[in-house]
Each structure stands twice: as C-alpha cells, then as structure tokens.
C-alpha cells in the first residue's frame, strides 16, 4: 500500500517538474513570443487563409471543380489501398514473430517445452518491436523514399513498419495474459505442441488480435495522409502540393475527402468488430 502511493506521488511530482521546466525552457531559452502570434500581420494572413479555404474570390473554388473531385476520389482510393497494404504488412509481420515475443512461451510455461533458443528469440523480437514503434511513421517514410520511388509502396511500408511494432507489443501482451484452461485441458489429453498452438492458443487470442488489427487500421487511415507529405503517395501528396501552391480551396477538398475516408473506415471496422462479437 505504501509503495502504491509512492510511485503515483513520484509521477505527479516528476510530471509537474517536467511541465514547469519545459515551459520555462520554451519561453526563456527558446524565446517563444506568444504576443507575436497575435500581431496584425498574422491576423491578415489568417484572414487570407480562411477566406482561401472557403474559396472566396475564386471563380471556381477547388471543392466544386469536377476534375479535381475526380482526382481527389482517385487519390482517396489510393490512400485506402495503401492503408490496407500497410495493415497487412504489419499483421503478417506480427503473426510471424509474436510467438517468440511472448514471455510465457519464452520460458516454456505455455507450451510446456523449454528450448535454449527461446530466450534469444524473445529478446530479438521484443527489440524489433521497440525499435520499430519508437520511430514514427513519417521518419520511416523519410528514410524509405531514399530507397524506393514515390508511390504507395513506400508509404505502406513506413506505416507497416511502425504499426508492426505496436501490434507486436499489444498482441504479445494478449498471449501473456491469456487463460491457460484450454491449454491445460488439451495438454492433459496428450495434444502435441502444434496441436496445442492450433486448437488452444489461436482460438483464444484470435478475437483480441482481430480487434487490435482493426483498431490499428483506423489509426493507419488517419496517419496515411501524413506519410504522403514526404512523397509517399496518396492524398497527402496532393495536400502538400496544394499547400505549396497556395491553392487553399483545394485544401478544403482534400480535408473533406480525408474526413470521409476516416469516417468510412470507422464504419467498416465497427461493423467488422460487431460481426466477430
């Protein structure tokens, strides 16, 4: 009980200290100026930008231009495809490694077998997870576009690598927390290791795995526009181009498409989640 209070108190103090230190740093060392933000010059920029978004003063604003809509829908479709490839890469990578990355398999508790290579494999796969999820998808994309030509593949790869780490962490925790009842029953009936895995582990964890995969897919759709900023395809690329050419009414169009895409994914994934309930 004593320790429970301690760590919470410690966290609160440390967090408060960090918050104060960071604000001090930003205002004193980095000399950020809050009042500069609200200067008259900025006000005119903001006004220009907002009226640009609404398409004021343009003959044909981007968001009612037929050709641009066609292009934007095509790009949305491309983004959608990219997100599916990304979650596919992440899920397959996770499924291939998650068996080694769970502690109860590494120490032989679950499979009732201990092999010398279990622990090294455990550390290697956990290390992979930590590394790939600590680096944000945009940084992965920046590195990958040095190797692959712009298109949806580099974006999908970058999103896939990052989410591989997150899915791996979530799913290895599912295996670690699973109940052993069915495994015990199977093993007392004399099931082999493969049978244990096929009939014991997979049915128990499958629902949680699918839920996590769907959840990450929603997140991927949200971030897919971002990897386009560095030239990795999809809506983001057009968004950035429109931004650099100051075509603000096109920005509105892309934002509409982006929101629609996010809502569409939410609907599909909610539907799928209810389906497997």
């Amino acid at each position, binding site marked *: 009980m004593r320790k429970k209070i301690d760590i919470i108190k410690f966290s609160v103090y440390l967090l408060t200290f960090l918050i104060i*230190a960071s604000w001090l740093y930003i205002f004193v060392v980095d000399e950020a100026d809050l009042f500069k933000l609200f200067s008259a010059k900025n006000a005119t920029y903001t006004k220009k930008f907002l009226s640009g978004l609404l398409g004021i003063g343009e003959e044909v604003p981007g968001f009612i231009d037929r050709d641009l809509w066609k292009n934007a829908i095509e790009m949305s479709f491309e983004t959608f495809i990219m997100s599916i490839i990304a979650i596919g890469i992440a899920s397959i990578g996770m499924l291939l490694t998650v068996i080694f990355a769970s502690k109860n398999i590494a120490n032989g508790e679950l499979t009732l077998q201990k092999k010398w290579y279990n622990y090294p494999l455990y550390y290697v796969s956990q290390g992979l997870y930590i590394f790939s999820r600590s680096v944000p998808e945009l940084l992965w994309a920046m590195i990958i576009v040095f190797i692959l030509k712009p298109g949806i593949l580099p974006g999908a790869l970058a999103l896939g690598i990052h989410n591989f780490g997150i899915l791996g962490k979530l799913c290895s925790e599912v295996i670690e927390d699973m109940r052993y009842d069915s495994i015990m029953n199977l093993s007392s009936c004399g099931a082999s290791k493969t049978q244990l895995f096929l009939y014991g582990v997979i049915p128990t964890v499958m629902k949680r795995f699918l839920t996590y995969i769907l959840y990450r897919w929603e997140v991927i759709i949200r971030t897919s526009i971002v990897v386009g900023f560095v030239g990795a395809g999809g809506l983001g690329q057009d968004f950035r181009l429109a931004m650099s050419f100051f075509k603000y009414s096109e920005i509105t169009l892309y934002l509409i498409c982006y929101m629609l895409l996010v809502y569409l994914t939410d609907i599909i994934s909610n539907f799928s989640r209810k389906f*497997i309930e």
Partner: protein
Amino acid sequence: MKINKYLELHKRGILSLLLLGAFLLSLTYIPWSSDLIHAGGRSTINEVIRSFFNPDLSPHLLRIGFIASWQTLAYAVASIALALIIAIFLGVLSSGVLFESVFIKTFCRGLLGFMRAIHELIWAWLFVAAIGLSPLAAMFALAIPYGGILGRIFSDLMQDVETPQILALKTSGASPMQQLFYGYFPASFANMLSYTMYRLECAVRSSSILSFVGLGGLGFQIQISLSDLKYNEVWTFLFFLVILVVLIDIWSNLLRRRLSQ
C-alpha cells in the same frame, strides 16, 4: 440453417480470410517491377544497413543528441500540459457531470471528435498557413488532437465512476461542483494519470515529427542528417529517440503495474 450455423462458428476465420483477401487484392494495385527502386537505391540500402552497425558516436554529435532529445521532450511535455487543460475542461463538460444539458454534452463530444479526427501534422500545416512558422503554433497543433483524445477518455472515465462515494455526496447535498472535486476527480485520478503517461509517449514521437513545421529537436536533426546523406548520424539520433521513448514507456509501465495491484 446449416449455413447460418457454419457462419456462426467461423465468424473470426471468415473475417481473417476477408482481410487477407483484401490485402492480396490491394497488392495487385502496385505496379511490381524493378522500377519501384531508385537508380541508386540498392547501394543506398547497403549504406543504410551498414551505418546502422556503426552509428556516429563522436562526443560532438552526442552533445547535439542530448540537447535535441531534451527539446523534443520539452515540447512534448508542454503540449501535453496544454492538452490536459483542454481535456479536463471539455471532458468535464461532455461527461455531463456538471451540467445535465444534452446540448452541451453532444456539442462537446462532437468538438472532441472533430479535434482528434484530424492528425496533428495537418493541424500544424493549417497553423503554418494561417500564422506562419512558429514553435508555439506547432505546440498548439499537437495539443488539439491530444486534447481531443484525452478529453474523450477523461469523460468516459468520469462517467464510469458510480461508486458509493458519489451517492453519499449526492445524498448529503453536495453541489455538482463539489461532487466533481470530491467525488469524480479523486475516483478517476489514477486512471487519468496512467493514460496521460501513455499519451506522453505518443507525444514524444509526434513532437519529433513536427520538425516539419519548424520545431527543433530530434526530428529536425534527423532531417538535416538525411539531407546530408549522413546515415550514421541518422541512426544515432534514431537511437536517442528510441531510448527516450523506452524510458517513458518504463515509467508508465511502472505506474500501471502499481495501479493494477
């Protein structure tokens, strides 16, 4: 009838197959050929992998790394502080603890949903277009979606509080404000803290991304090193980022373990 039963039994298998099918179908969309790789792509891969094993660890670069890590952390923490203010304010309003009004509740819920539907980098771009490059703008851009997520979670947590304490407070005639401060906040505080810690980890990653809109820190250094094609420096900074995230991860894990006891 038989088909229904079959469906019922194999729902998860069917969904997995559907997802796999969608994945394979999507793969055909990519024009597979050697055209996908840059002309010098192969040697770049070699170089990137080789420099992974000997990152630049000169004292000069390590010093830059430490400063950049602190910058990234500082901006993340400051943004989280802003997000907390937004989240507590809107979270309380949308949980319906203070006001019973359905209008306020749905309005705040919708606002929170809108805030988190748009990614922080897009907020940042919009801010850049509206008020120019500025670290403060980047912080606001980070605080808006994070405020949206935290606010949603906070309001859910407060709605889940249905302990005898609240009833006791209600029956003894506490005002909604008193209920909030003596009932709802203390009861959900631990969970709020734990979730904030988790979000802090994400904020560190996001603040390294926001170097695209003029925020200093690790992301900025990585961008510079990448444009100089110094991959060994890139890996050094990436290691710094990984260590920073892992440290916060360990901290929040410790906290969560204590809370679940």
